[in-house]
């Protein structure tokens, strides 16, 4: 049964990706395809007083310039614009009216016969604005922060306990705005067919989310629009909500009754979602033995004027560490910027970074080993709801990670370890994320030649969904993986939510199992009808699909081949679709955990920081694919290196404009920045969470990494840098 689940199976879409055959949203051809180029607002707040497109329209090859003044109809109710994962508020509507809500807002779309012409003509669009007063600086406006939600109940009297604590640490950590910067540019190809129907190839993490959104925004019937996204060149949360270019490409196609492609420039991508800048204030009060008396965590985050984007930055402390007194708060500051969005481990990447830096500072104050401190506060229950976990092998993560890293050889004194002219620092941190699961439907079409097509609307954004779906289907159907073909990311396929939150592995895998059970039921019915059938009278529960046959689980020599069962039944194919829903379990908390260990080497004279080693020990239930799973964690670690040392979107608050809106000045890790990364999957059997014991890996890899690196920098240099990223100027300062 388990020939593939749990093995290091290579990606089934690997060949398509290494040969260039895999097609991404902006690469689908169409007859008479037109190209749209976006004109952006250059002020952060105000209205468009005059928009002159006459010069652009004179350029040979330009067909139209769409603006708020001449566009086709768009929905006027917020409900239509509110997608599956929209926050509270009134979503942004591109080219809707003359108001400007943020710098970089799209205000016109030039449509031309080719891309270069559209790009050139876009430079000829003249805009005059009435600018209004604006604010874009979170730190300058923090006094206007408003309490938004209280995700966790306060316990005891945290303020008083903290004030009286024997050992106390309280500090602010600042996480800057960060942009996802997937390698693929945000892109949509809207293909117009002669019946007026549209096929939309869009860079999205949720084709059905985009489909429903477009049907609402353009008042179309579900059958009028199909959205597909077979390959997605990275997204990391940026493709959860429909991006504005999908509206613009669709607008262009409807206006001109032609196929239209809109690809944003790298610079324009900075006008969409991002990880919000946050000021994270953490307070920890402890007894002298290291047990915690009080935990407080307040986050102040940026959002737009029109939507309240808030994530759980502050609740993690409560889950991770036992403390009788705690208080959490999340505040938002509304600024003249676009709405933030989810970015890898939203909330946790920032909040746990602050918490785990604070824990390190507390361990220094207590003169206690950082792991020792975390074990003192270890909790086997989620204290917010006072529930046990479905499984929690975090202790094992600390032990295995420390062992692999060589933590016991660490001299705790800062600046005590050297390698030539470089100071060496060792730091560690804990990571935590949720183990979520969602309803997903899968269709399996089994043909009598022993091949199966497995289909679902879910996306594979590089996470490996194609591969794990094929693995689970191969095992559940008892077929070689080469006989499984997987179709994903088409809005006409069985239902799936957006791919995010690390929920797709568990959700899609169990949907495959559910659909495969329906197939097995049908095969049993057919096989049982054969005269003298070895399966006559067999219970479904006593059957398995194995080796191209349906067999008794108790004696798999008593079997009927799929081909025989279907031939006798007179069918060529069995088609079954099943929606899998997970039972509600209110008796357990569901989380993944990690222990991250980092080594940095810091050039004492130049301040250059290198992350020379990272060990990430992960407890995330059963790992479906140890090869692609390892890659996901490794990628998360690389993201953590970026968050710790490189990434920062810098805004000039005098103009409310991003200054480094490109991928050279917005720094992300390059190959030379990344050295040894050791990923350890700790054995974590989980009998409660779901049948396969799966938890998901997309987010947990980044959580804790920035803190482990920051703590290592402190250990190397004796300098505590609380404003991220930790650049060399801060080390030398």
């Amino acid at each position, binding site marked *: 049964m388990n020939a593939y689940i749990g093995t290091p199976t290579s990606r089934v879409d690997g060949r398509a990706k290494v040969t260039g055959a895999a097609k991404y949203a902006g690469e689908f051809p169409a007859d008479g395809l037109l190209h749209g180029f976006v004109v952006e607002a250059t002020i952060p707040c105000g209205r468009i007083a005059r928009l002159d497109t006459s010069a652009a329209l004179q350029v040979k090859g330009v067909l139209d310039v769409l603006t708020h003044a001449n566009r086709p109809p768009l929905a006027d109710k917020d409900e239509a614009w509110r997608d599956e994962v929209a926050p509270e508020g009134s979503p942004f509507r591109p080219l809707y009216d003359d108001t400007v809500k943020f710098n970089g807002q799209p205000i016109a779309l030039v449509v031309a016969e080719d891309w270069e012409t559209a790009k050139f003509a876009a430079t000829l669009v003249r805009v005059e604005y009435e600018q209004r007063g604006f604010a874009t600086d979170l730190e300058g406006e923090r006094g206007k922060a408003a309490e938004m939600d209280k995700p966790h109940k306060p316990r005891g009297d945290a303020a008083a306990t903290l004030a009286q604590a024997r050992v106390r640490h309280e500090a602010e950590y600042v996480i800057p705005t960060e942009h996802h910067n997937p390698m*693929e540019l945000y892109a949509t190809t809207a293909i117009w067919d002669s019946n007026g129907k549209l096929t939309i190839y869009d860079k999205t993490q949720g084709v059905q989310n985009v489909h429903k959104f477009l049907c609402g925004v353009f008042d179309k019937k579900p059958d009028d629009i199909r959205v597909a996204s077979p390959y997605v060149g*990275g997204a990391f949360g940026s493709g959860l909500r429909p991006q504005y270019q999908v509206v613009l490409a669709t607008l262009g196609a409807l206006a001109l009754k032609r196929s239209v492609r809109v690809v944003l420039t790298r610079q324009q991508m900075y006008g969409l979602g991002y990880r919000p800048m946050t000021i994270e204030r953490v307070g920890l009060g402890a007894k002298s033995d290291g047990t915690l008396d009080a935990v407080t965590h307040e986050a102040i985050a940026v959002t737009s004027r029109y939507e309240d984007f808030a994530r759980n930055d502050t609740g993690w402390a409560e889950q991770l560490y036992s403390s009788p007194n705690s208080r959490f708060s999340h505040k938002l500051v509304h600024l003249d910027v676009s709405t933030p969005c989810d970015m890898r481990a939203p909330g946790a990447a920032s909040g746990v970074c602050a918490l785990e830096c604070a824990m390190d500072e507390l361990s220094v104050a207590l003169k206690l080993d950082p792991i020792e401190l975390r074990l003192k506060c270890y909790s086997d229950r989620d204290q917010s709801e006072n529930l046990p976990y479905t499984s929690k092998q975090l202790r094992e993560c600390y032990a295995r990670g420390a062992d692999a890293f060589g933590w016991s050889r660490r001299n705790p004194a800062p600046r005590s370890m050297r390698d030539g002219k470089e100071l060496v620092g060792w730091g560690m941190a804990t990571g935590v994320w949720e183990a979520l699961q969602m309803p997903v439907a899968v269709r399996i079409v089994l043909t009598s030649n022993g091949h199966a097509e497995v289909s679902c609307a879910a996306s594979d954004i590089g996470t490996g969904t194609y591969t794990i779906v094929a693995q689970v289907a191969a095992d559940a159907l008892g077929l070689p993986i080469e006989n499984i073909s997987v179709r994903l990311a088409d809005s006409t396929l069985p239902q799936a939510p957006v791919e995010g939150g690390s929920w797709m592995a568990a959700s899609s895998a169990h949907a495959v199992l559910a659909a495969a059970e329906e197939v097995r039921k049908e095969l049993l019915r057919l096989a049982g009808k054969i005269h003298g059938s070895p399966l006559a009278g067999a219970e479904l529960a006593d059957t398995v699909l194995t080796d191209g046959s349906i067999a008794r689980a108790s004696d798999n020599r008593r079997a009927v081949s799929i081909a025989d069962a279907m031939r006798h039944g007179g069918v060529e194919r069995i088609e079954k679709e099943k929606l899998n829903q997970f039972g509600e379990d209110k008796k357990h908390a569901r989380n993944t955990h990690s222990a991250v260990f980092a080594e940095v080497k810091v050039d004492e004279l130049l301040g250059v920081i290198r992350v020379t080693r990272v060990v990430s020990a992960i407890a995330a239930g059963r790992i479906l694919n140890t090869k692609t799973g390892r890659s996901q964690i490794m990628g998360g670690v690389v993201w953590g290196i970026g968050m710790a040392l490189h990434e920062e979107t810098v805004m000039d608050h005098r103009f409310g404009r991003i200054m480094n809106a490109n991928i050279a000045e917005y720094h992300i890790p390059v*190959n030379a920045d990344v050295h040894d990364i050791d990923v350890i999957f700790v054995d974590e059997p989980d009998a409660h969470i779901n049948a396969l014991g799966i938890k998901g890996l997309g987010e947990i890899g980044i959580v804790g990494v920035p803190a482990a690196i920051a703590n290592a920098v402190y250990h190397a240099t004796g300098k505590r840098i609380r404003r991220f990223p930790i650049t060399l100027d801060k080390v030398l300062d």
Partner: protein
Amino acid sequence: MGDLTHQIPERIPIHLVVNGVSHTLDLVPWTTLLDALRDHLALSGTKKGCDHGQCGACTVLVDGRRVNSCLTLAVMNDGAEITTVEGLAKDGTLHPLQQAFIDHDAFQCGYCTPGQICSAAGLLVEGRARDADEIRELMSGNLCRCGAYPNILAAIQQAMGQP
């Protein structure tokens, strides 16, 4: 502003040999080699990630040298031999680098992969990378946001015959 219809330059005939196939294209001179491949020859295997020479996704081999195809105009390459990711496999057999990328899971989303592979193919020919640090350094013009760098390194080492 005058008559802007004259601001679109005249098309120029350009000859390119791409993956061994000869093409004559009529292109306006501002067309980059990248756009010529993607939009005019339907070779979308070569990726556009920034259009500014910052990410390396558009790397192709021009007369055997690795080049950011977004930073060179098609007209500048008149007569050149171009190899793109579509031209690496021979008769259905993957190039050793392509196979090594699959074996080592050296990609996730796959968008930077054609550029990584073409860049690595150029690197092998250059013969300058002798150890892991040199490979990392000389592959640092090719960004991978999924963070597959250690696996990219391992794949290149496999193709180089290094342990």
